[in-house]
C-alpha cells in the first residue's frame, strides 16, 4: 500500500511538471498589466513565467548570459533588435502562425532596423516629451534651450539614460541626436554642464512622481509617464520640442532555440487582439500601433496629446541608433556631467 502511494505520488508530480505548457517572458517593467497575463493563462492553460528589465542593455546582458531556452519571448527596442539580430540571438518569425497580424498599423512595419519584419513585430511606440507644470512655470517652453533659464534652479527632472539625455543636448545645439563627432559632443557636454544647476534629479523609475507631488516643475520623460502625470494633475502640459525628440518602438521577438515557440506565438497573437491591446494602453498610455485598437480607444486617451501622439508630431521623432564603440565617448561625457 505504501509503495503504491509513493508510485502514485511520483506519477502525479511528474505529471504536473511535464504536461503543463509554459512560456518564459522577459519584458520591460510597467508595460503589461498583470490582469492581461492572468487572463491569457486562464484562456490557454499556459503557465507564464514573467520577469522584467529596465533597459535594453540589461535585456542584452540577461539574454546573452542565460542558458539558451531560459527565456522565450522578449521586447527589445528598435536598435536592440538590430544588435540582437546581428549577434544571432533571434529566431525568424513565422507570421503564418499569427492570425491577428493584420491589425498592426503599417506605419510601424518594415522599418530600417528590421526590414520586412523578419525578426520582430511592433508592440508599442514611445517617445520622450517635456512635461511642464504650467501653474509654476509661466514662460512658454518650446525648445530644449528654454530649459537653461536660470529661474528654473532645482526644478528639472531628467530620465537617467545617457543616450537620451546626451542626444537631447545634441538636438538642442542643432546636431544629429546620434552624433559621434567629437566637437559636437563637446558642445553637448558644455550644454549639459550649463543645465546642471537646474537639475533636481535623474530618475528613470518614476519621474512622473516628481511632477505629481510637485517636487519639480519640469521633466523630460517617456510619453506615457507624461500622459499619466497630466491625468493626475491638470496643470501639467506636455510639449514636443521643436528640435525633435527620441522615438522608440518596442517589439515582440522570439529568442533563438526557444523551447516554447508555439506558446510565444499564441501570446503575441493574444496581445494583437484589439481589446487586449486596449487594456494595455489604458494602463500604460504609450502610443498604440494596433489600428483595430485605434477604433475603440476612450476619449480619455485620445484627448491626451502625450499618449495619443499625432502622426504629424511623430515625424519629428528620431530613433536612437547603435553607435558601437563610440558609446565610450558618451560614457565619458556621462561620467563628467554627473
Amino acid at each position, binding site marked *: 500500500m505504501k509503495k503504491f502511494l509513493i508510485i502514485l505520488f511520483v506519477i502525479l508530480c511528474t505529471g504536473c511538471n511535464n504536461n503543463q505548457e509554459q512560456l518564459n517572458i522577459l519584458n520591460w517593467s510597467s508595460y503589461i498589466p498583470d490582469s492581461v497575463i492572468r487572463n491569457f493563462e486562464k484562456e490557454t492553460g499556459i503557465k507564464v513565467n514573467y520577469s522584467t528589465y529596465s*533597459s535594453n*542593455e*540589461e535585456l*542584452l*546582458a540577461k539574454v*546573452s548570459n542565460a542558458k539558451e531556452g531560459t527565456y522565450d519571448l522578449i521586447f527589445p527596442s528598435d536598435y536592440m533588435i538590430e*544588435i540582437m539580430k546581428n*549577434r544571432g540571438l533571434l529566431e525568424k518569425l513565422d507570421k503564418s502562425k499569427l492570425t491577428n497580424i493584420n491589425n498592426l498599423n503599417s506605419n510601424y512595419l518594415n522599418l530600417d532596423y528590421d526590414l520586412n519584419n523578419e525578426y520582430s513585430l511592433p508592440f508599442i511606440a514611445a517617445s520622450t516629451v517635456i512635461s511642464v507644470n504650467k501653474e509654476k512655470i509661466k514662460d512658454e517652453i518650446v525648445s530644449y534651450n528654454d530649459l537653461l533659464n536660470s529661474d528654473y534652479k*532645482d526644478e528639472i527632472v531628467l530620465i*537617467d*539614460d*545617457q*543616450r537620451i539625455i546626451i542626444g537631447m543636448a545634441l538636438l538642442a545645439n542643432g546636431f544629429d541626436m546620434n552624433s559621434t563627432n567629437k566637437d559636437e559632443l563637446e558642445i553637448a557636454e558644455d550644454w549639459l554642464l550649463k543645465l*546642471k544647476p537646474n*537639475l*533636481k*534629479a*535623474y*530618475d528613470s523609475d518614476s519621474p512622473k512622481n516628481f511632477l505629481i*507631488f*510637485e*517636487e519639480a516643475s519640469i521633466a523630460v520623460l517617456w510619453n506615457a509617464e507624461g500622459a499619466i502625470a497630466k491625468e493626475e494633475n491638470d496643470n501639467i502640459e506636455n510639449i514636443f520640442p521643436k528640435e525633435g525628440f527620441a522615438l522608440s518602438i518596442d517589439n515582440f521577438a522570439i529568442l533563438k532555440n526557444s523551447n516554447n515557440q508555439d506558446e510565444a506565438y499564441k501570446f503575441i497573437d493574444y496581445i494583437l487582439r484589439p481589446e487586449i491591446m486596449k487594456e494595455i494602453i489604458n494602463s500604460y498610455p504609450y502610443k498604440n500601433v494596433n489600428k483595430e485598437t485605434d477604433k475603440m480607444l476612450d476619449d480619455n486617451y485620445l484627448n491626451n496629446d502625450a499618449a495619443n501622439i499625432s502622426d504629424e508630431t511623430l515625424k519629428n521623432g528620431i530613433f536612437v541608433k547603435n553607435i*558601437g*564603440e563610440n*558609446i*565610450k565617448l*558618451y*560614457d*565619458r561625457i*556621462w*561620467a*563628467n556631467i*554627473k
Partner: protein
Amino acid sequence: MKNKTLRFIFLTPVIIYTFCLIVLPLLYILTISFFKSDFYGGMIYDFTLENYKELFNFVYLRIFVNSILIALVTTLICILISYPFVLAISHKSKKIQQIIMTLVMVPFLTNSLIRMYGWIVLLRKSGAINELLLNFNIIDNPLSLMYNNIGIIIGMVYTFIPFMILPLYNSVSNIDKYTLEAASDLGASKIKRFLNIILPQTLSGLFNGAIMVFTPALGCFFIIDILGGGKVMILGNLIKNQFLTARNWPFGAAISVFLILLTTILILIYKKIGGKMDDLGGI
C-alpha cells in the same frame, strides 16, 4: 588522525564554497579586465592594459575622489554619533544595553531599498518633516533635504551606522571598569581617563568600524540614486554603467579590481596599526 579526517570533512564544503563563489569569480573579473570590449557586452580576447590606462582619465579620477570623499564624510559622522552613544549606554544595566543593541539591529530586518523609499516620504518637499516644520511655523519655505548632498549623507549614515556601533560597543564593553575606577580614585580628570584608558582600548574597534563603514560606502550607488537624485556618480554607478549601458565589461572589471585593491590597502593599514583580523569578521 581521526580528528584530522573529521576536520577535513567539515572544512571541504567551506573550501569548495569559497573557491567556487569567491575565488573563481574574482579570477574571472581579474582576467577579463585585461581583454578588449566589443561594445555589445562581449569581449575580444586580446591582452591589453588599455582598461587600466583609461582609469587615469581625469573624468574617472574625479569619480574616485568623489566616492572617497562621500565615504569619508559618512565614516566621520558615523564615528561622531556612535562614540558618545556607545559610551552613554555602557553605563546602563545589562538588560537596557541588550534592548538598545537589539533596537540598533532591528532595521536590518527590512530590505535597505525599502527603507530608502521610506526616507523619501520623510524628506521630500511635501514630506513629513517639512510639513511638521511648516505647520509649527519654524520655517517659511520647505527645506531641500534630499536630491542633494544632505540627502546622500543622511541615507549613508543611516544605513551604515550599525556597522560602526557594533564593533565600538564590543570594545567599549571590554574595557576594565576597575582601571577606570582606579584612575578616578587617583584623581584623573574625565578627559584624561578618556584619552589614556578608553581611547587606546577602543582604537581597534574604531578602525574596525571605520573599515566596515568606509568600504561598502564606496560602492553603495542605490542610496545616491534614490536620495541624491542620481546627480552624483560614484564607483558603484560607474561599474554598473560599464556592465549595462556602456556594455564595456573589461573596463567595469578593471574598476572593480581597482576597488578591491583600494580596500586591500585599507585593511593592510588597519593591520599595520595593530588591528586584529579576527575583529573584522567576528563581531
